[in-house]
């Protein structure tokens, strides 16, 4: 019987790690992009500096917004951070987990964050918020069925949607990847590009009104509120990458609480996230942003991949 730390401690430690490390991943992707464009680029710690700067700034709020507008960044951050508690980062528990949530609740929480953000964008009025909200919700709803099919195709073999259990059960099977796993992984990578709001679906660096999706909704947020949303965006990105890693690369998860095991798990986690973040950066550097109405076609590829994965699995 292995000894992992108490489930509650484990969950809190993993969630805290995900929240704290999230801006670093964004920093890494930015740095990678800069180097690929032959620029020196800002330090990988830049997102932390941006956050601390925003936290110290004052707020300018739209005079049409309701009092609820102030609460939105906080709720968005809280929903996204709650989602982190459902992922295996360092440990793959064989036994008890905290019965907190599974992949479906995780997707639900991310959808809640998106919904609140869209409501906030409409709250301030103005065309940019509405446009951003409309587009973000559209992309979100196109991602969801494909994501569900992917989760489904992976869960069919393990019989559960609890991401912790999925990772634990699939860990010994890593070298026996089958065709459905592969197709599901390809589908998932396509969806990850959309979920993290990156090229070719969205461009995180643009503030040009015609190309904004996510950024359009943030225009009226400022100061600490904007900091909360920016942090939530970083966290969402890392949550997506961790989900991919947990579903398809559940390797190197620790079985106990000994320091070497934890160090090894940490290194494995870092390597996986680094690899996936490199994928994001490479795609972002080598593709152009798709026209908005081409996005459904791009996501359709992910949907069909996931469908094929499921078909190969059950037929």
């Amino acid at each position, binding site marked *: 019987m292995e000894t992992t730390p108490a489930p509650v401690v484990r969950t809190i430690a993993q969630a805290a790690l995900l929240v704290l490390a999230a801006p670093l991943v964004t920093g890494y992707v930015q740095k990678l992009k800069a180097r690929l464009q032959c620029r020196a680029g800002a330090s990988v710690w830049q997102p932390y500096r941006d956050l601390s700067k925003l936290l110290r700034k004052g707020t300018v709020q739209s005079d049409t917004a309701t009092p609820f507008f102030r609460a939105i960044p906080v709720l968005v951050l809280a929903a996204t951070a709650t989602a982190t508690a459902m992922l295996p980062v360092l440990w793959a528990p064989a036994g008890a987990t905290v019965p907190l949530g599974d992949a479906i609740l995780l997707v639900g929480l991310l959808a809640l964050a998106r919904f609140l953000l869209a409501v906030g964008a409409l709250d301030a009025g103005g065309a940019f918020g509405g446009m951003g909200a409309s587009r973000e919700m559209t992309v979100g709803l196109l991602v969801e069925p494909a994501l569900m099919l992917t989760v489904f195709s992976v869960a069919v073999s393990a019989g559960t949607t609890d991401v912790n259990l999925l990772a634990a059960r699939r860990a010994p099977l890593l070298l026996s990847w*089958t*065709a459905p*796993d592969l197709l599901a992984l390809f589908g998932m990578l396509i969806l990850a590009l959309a979920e993290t709001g990156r090229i070719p679906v969205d461009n995180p660096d643009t503030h040009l009104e015609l190309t904004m999706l996510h950024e359009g909704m943030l225009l009226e947020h400022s100061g600490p509120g904007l900091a909360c949303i920016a942090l939530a965006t970083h966290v969402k990105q890392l949550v997506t990458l961790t989900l991919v890693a947990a579903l398809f690369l559940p390797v190197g998860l620790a079985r106990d609480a000994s320091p070497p095991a934890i160090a090894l798990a940490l290194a494995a986690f870092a390597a996986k996230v680094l690899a996936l973040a490199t994928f994001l950066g490479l795609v972002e550097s080598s593709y152009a942003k798709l026209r908005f109405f081409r996005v459904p*076609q791009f996501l359709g*590829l992910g949907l069909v991949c996931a469908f*094929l994965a499921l078909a190969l699995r059950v*037929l």
Partner: protein
Amino acid sequence: MSVALAARLIDVLGGLLLFTMLLILAAGQVFRAIYAVAAQAVFLGIAGAVLAAATGNVDLWIIAFITIVAKAIVLPWLLIRVVRRVQISREIEPVIPVHLTLTLAAGIVVLAFHLNASLGPVRQTVTGNALPVGVTLILIGVLVMASRRKALVQMVGLFASENGIFFTAMAISQGMPLIIEIGVILDVVLGALVMGILVLRVRSSVDTDIADLESLKG
């Protein structure tokens, strides 16, 4: 190489072949479709090599080698050359919307697996899902030919379809006689050459594409 490992590798390669097929279907640009079909040929060659290692059939090594050289290097090079020469627009022009073709492709997969269930006795244990995957590739290749306007993309569909036939043949019968395989590959190369020349000639003499052929009817 053990039979079980070979079966698993063929399974995974079948998944990769399907994925490249989807990439061909979803490609928005001619070049991407060509790269995808080249990648497909590489996976097909690897599948041949895996089967060769598993069965000890020397012919399969040769076929795998020829497949990679002819289909993953020569043909794509030829197609890309033609695309550059005729300077056609790079967008793929679908006859029916791409999302519809993707839906049809999903339907084809279900159909292929359904047929596979009724073809039970033919199915071989070593090759697992290879038969339905091969049938899927053949059918989707035809779908590409039917649903794309450009002659070059139709060529890509033909190659993909041919890859499917190859994969099915390899997986079921552990390879046809060498001479037949080589003949088939030569056929395809020849077909590509003829097609390429045709496209070039048609383009240079009347400045048109095959989609305009329908204006010929009375």
